[in-house]
């Protein structure tokens, strides 16, 4: 009962987070707030992936295969979380770091050029620029 409630709660919270952050990315006015929404979205997805590999069975053991004889294998399979989603999340975090750093640089540069981080005003400032190349 409590377990089912927790599962539903986590899924509901993740869904709400995802909706709010997608709204922020699409309709947000400030570029910085858009970046924050993007990080919230990617973290939400990463938590969802971790949650996909989570396996609740007390006592919980780390997913490290030690007993090569085979007696401990069944215990490990029953009590350890799946490590592969964690590897996926690790990859996702590293990639997300690169993208976020690049976008943050872009926002700083946009602020230097247009003196604002408001997405619509930036476009207005730029509309008069003559493009030569």
């Amino acid at each position, binding site marked *: 009962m409590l377990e089912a409630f927790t599962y539903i709660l986590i899924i509901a919270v993740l869904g709400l987070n995802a909706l709010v952050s997608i709204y922020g990315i699409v309709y947000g006015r400030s*570029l910085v707030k858009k970046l924050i929404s993007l990080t919230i979205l990617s973290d939400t*997805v990463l938590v969802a992936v971790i949650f996909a590999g989570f396996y609740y069975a007390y006592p919980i053991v780390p997913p490290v295969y030690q007993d090569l004889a085979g007696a401990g294998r069944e215990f490990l399979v029953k009590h350890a979380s799946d490590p592969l989603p964690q590897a996926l999340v690790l990859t996702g975090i590293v990639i*997300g770091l690169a*993208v976020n750093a690049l976008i943050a640089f872009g926002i700083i540069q946009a602020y230097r050029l*247009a003196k604002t981080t408001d997405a619509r005003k930036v476009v207005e*400032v730029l509309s008069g620029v003559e*493009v030569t*190349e």
Partner: protein
Amino acid sequence: MIEPQVIESFIGLAPFIPAFFGFATPVLYLAARNKLIVFSFLLSGLTLSTMISILVAIGTYATENPLVFKAGGWPAPIGIVYIVDRFSAVLGLVSSFTLLLIGLYSVSYIVDDAYPWYAILLLGNAAGILGVIYTGDLFNLFVMLEVTGVSSYALVMYYRHRADSIVSGLKYAFIGSLGTTLYLLAMGLLYSYYGTLNTIDFSYKLQYITSPAHAYAFGAIMILALWAFSIKSGVFPNHFWLPDAHPAAPTPISALLSGLVVKTGLVGLYKVLYISTWSISGGVYGSIRELTALAAIIMGALSAVFGALLMFIQRDVKRLIAYSTVMNLGYLFMGIGCLTRSGLEATLYYTIVHSLAKATLFMSAGVFIKAAGTRDLDKLAGLGSRYPVAGIALAVSTLTLAGAPPLPGFLAKLLLYEALFEKSPVIAITMIIASAIGLLSYMRLFYTILLGVPVVSWKQLDFKCAKIVLLLLSIVIIVVGIVFLFNPDFLSKIIGAASTQSTINIEKYAEYVKGTLRLP
């Protein structure tokens, strides 16, 4: 003749070599501080990856079966596997060849101080594109999409003192990373419901894992993947970033983005709709797969019509070409949504033709833009006769994209029309209408630049490398057109064999991969 087993071990090098050269470039730059040395290093990296992709293409046509490379020797569902069939081998060959020529063109086009960054990002992009094309693992596809994506965002922002490129790059980065994040969610769902990320393993698991919950999960995976790939490819309704981002970049990068990077979404759709889900026959899964393909066709049709209409009203020459990309990717999505052998054949041939012609068109327009110092189409009038090589390249590429008979665009459109007509006459007629509207814009471009009266003063350019590249690309396009049009045997042996392998003989393909990887 080299054994296929030897060639298989080279597949992993195709994405690795550009990445290695990319990481080595800063060291070389710090030691040499010379533009010529950095660019020759870039070109040697791209040449090596082109040679490997030629080797891989020869290998796939030497055997009936696809080539399989296990990264680090790990077994399949756990380790990353590269599966190269004929479809991906041909696309990889065309992509790496075009990348090499784009690199050569950049030698004369990039004149500012930031060239080492340019070389690093171009090599990173090459690694990402080749990885997307060769991979057989759906999570590795995500990683390679992000590698391609990050380097593309940075390349769009290359002119960092110019506000329009920064803002367009930011728009592209936000929408692109939204798409890849949704794809990551799809991968999480895929792993939690099916316990695999390998394309072939997934296709076998779909045969016996069935339940209502799995049907919902499969639907969600397909929708999220289609949405992510349509963002990557710039197909309606996710096309809005493309006409801003592609013109804002330096011209060789516009050619790269319009010719190759947008194809990553298409290749991803091929891996999801053809390789991963071939085993489905009927049932709930079957209808979900059919609906996804239908959604791709409808999005493609709308994209083609909107792209053609918006292309007609553009004054900026680079935006005009960017809208032509929206239109052409619409055609390709329509072709890949057919789920038939003829649809895949048309898609493969059209992709090759579009990659070459769009890169040529952007690079020849780049010469005129650099000469006149403006992107306004009316002000570029008559410059074609001043730069004969670029003028010829522009003529060849516009006529190819418009579909004039001796050139390859004609056969590509004919194949696509036949494939779409088999599916439904309505879609085929939509394609013809979009094509007719597009023809007007191509002819406007052709007549204004080649036959118009000059209105602005131009400066003389020393574009030796660019001239070589444009001449070479024009010759390649003409040769491809003539060889395939007048020799149907050649067409069926290369393009036809590739599409047969991935559709009709797909069961044999999957059995072979299953046996090689010792899948359960």
